[in-house]
């Protein structure tokens, strides 16, 4: 069955229709891209999936479970993770803490144990620390473990955001413009990274991107939004020459 489905999702902000009749079915393991001009509603889609906004209409299903109405952290617990267009790391906390916080829902002790630092607490803390350090290692960030996140170079901050997202043990990963601000060399490494984590962590990935190289390069399927509407969907080759897509980006009158 599809991992993620959106059925007839409409979302209004007051009188403004931000997302119009979104329908989506994503199979496990797929790598899908969402593109569209600025303001098309791409990040809104992510917000709707992760529960930041509650869709005015429609359903969002993870396997067969309706996500609508759940609080964001509950959705994350069910295996959805995301990164952000503008990096939203916990800037004053250490790199390690940023990752450890993402383990919040997996921790196997309760508040009382935390007040008393019981044996169980210490055991779990050790496990979380070890897991987090290992994750940092995968992203070559272990040397920065006690550094405050704000002091990291930009590229490392982006990688940390991905590492943090992976710490929640997701099955579905939403990446919001991960290549923003990167130079060609970094972009190439990012593309390899995304494909690598997909197979390594058995992820299904949705990617919002403006950099066409990334989208065309690694996405198997692309969804194109404009003013909240889905104007095209299909394989990269189909989208590249799709008249409505070109029109959306370049304006009418350009073939």
């Amino acid at each position, binding site marked *: 069955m599809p991992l993620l489905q959106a059925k007839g999702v409409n979302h209004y902000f007051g009188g403004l229709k931000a997302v119009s009749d979104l329908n989506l079915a994503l199979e496990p393991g797929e790598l899908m891209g969402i593109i569209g001009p600025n303001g098309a509603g791409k*990040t809104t889609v*992510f*917000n709707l999936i992760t529960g*930041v*906004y509650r869709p005015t209409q429609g359903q969002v299903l993870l396997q067969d479970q309706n996500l609508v109405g759940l609080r964001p952290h509950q959705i994350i617990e069910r295996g959805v993770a995301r990164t*952000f267009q503008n990096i939203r790391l916990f800037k004053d906390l250490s790199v390690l803490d940023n990752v450890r916080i993402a383990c919040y829902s997996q921790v196997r002790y309760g508040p009382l144990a935390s007040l008393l630092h019981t044996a169980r607490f210490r055991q779990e803390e050790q496990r979380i620390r070890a897991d987090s350090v290992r994750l940092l290692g995968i992203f070559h960030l272990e040397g920065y473990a006690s550094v405050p996140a704000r002091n990291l170079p930009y590229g490392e901050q982006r990688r940390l955001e991905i590492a943090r997202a992976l710490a929640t043990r997701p099955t579905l990963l939403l990446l919001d413009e991960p290549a923003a601000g990167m130079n060609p060399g970094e972009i190439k490494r990012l593309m390899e990274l995304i494909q690598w984590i997909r197979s390594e962590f058995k992820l299904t990935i949705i990617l919002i991107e403006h950099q066409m190289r990334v989208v065309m390069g690694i996405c198997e399927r692309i969804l194109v939004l404009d003013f909240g509407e889905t104007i095209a969907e299909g394989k990269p080759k189909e989208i590249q020459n799709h008249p409505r897509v070109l029109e959306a980006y370049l304006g009418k009158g350009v073939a």
Partner: protein
Amino acid sequence: MQQVLNALQLGSVYALIALGYTMVYGILRMINFAHGDIFMVSTYVGFFAASFLLGRSLHLPNAVVFVLTLLVAMAGTSLLAVFIERVAYKPLRNAPRISAVITALGVGLVLENLTLATIGPEPRILPQVIPRINLSLGGVSVSAIQIVILAISAVVMFVLDTIVRKTMTGTAMRAISFDKSVVPLMGVPIDRIISITFALGSSMAAVGGILYGIAYMIDPYMGIRIGWWAFISAVVGGIGNIRGAMVGGYILGFVEIFVAAFLPSTYRDLIVFALLLVLLVFKPTGILGVPVVQQKV
């Protein structure tokens, strides 16, 4: 109906003080907790000014004394407020907001206790410059004081509203409250506008102070009592919104007078705060406040 007049009277004072809170919050996003004590200081300035003018055998007509007292109080209070802003608040404009709030609390305490230490805790009353006559209108007893309070408040609030809406300064003030970083780029002298805001807000409080002083007694602790009430008025009306502050002030005036009329005085605080709480739960931005748009992710 008598009570309605009393409520209007009290409400006017709250509204005037609330304006100061709301204007400063609108422009600096900071709750100036010292404002209530600035109000208190203004009443003492008025007290000394009036006493001085009356005592010097200048034989000025009472009306002139009154007006002069008002002007002196407004000027003095504005100077004080601008001074405080420059010395204590300006350095903290980019610090965590909490620091500014703590500083404001501190400044308020300093003002309060300075007054206490130098002038003493005994309540005083402003020299009588308004004749204590009562008129009878339609079966209701209206005092000259009440008329003065209501009239002056209305005029002053109208003037302020006009300033904010119609002048360049007012527009600049509103612009700053929307986006502080962009406004200097437009050639607006942001420091000057901020100082003007403080001066205006404190002048309002000074007017409120004098009007309060001619009707009730003053003491160094009134800043806390009245000040907090005015603050709540501003919040109820929607903090940052000037008309809201006026509305809030009158609402609170009415609540206070009518609660006191029907229930024992110890319940007054309780009711006011309970209402406030209920309001905030259901409409956090106050009555006229603009709802804060959901934070975009």
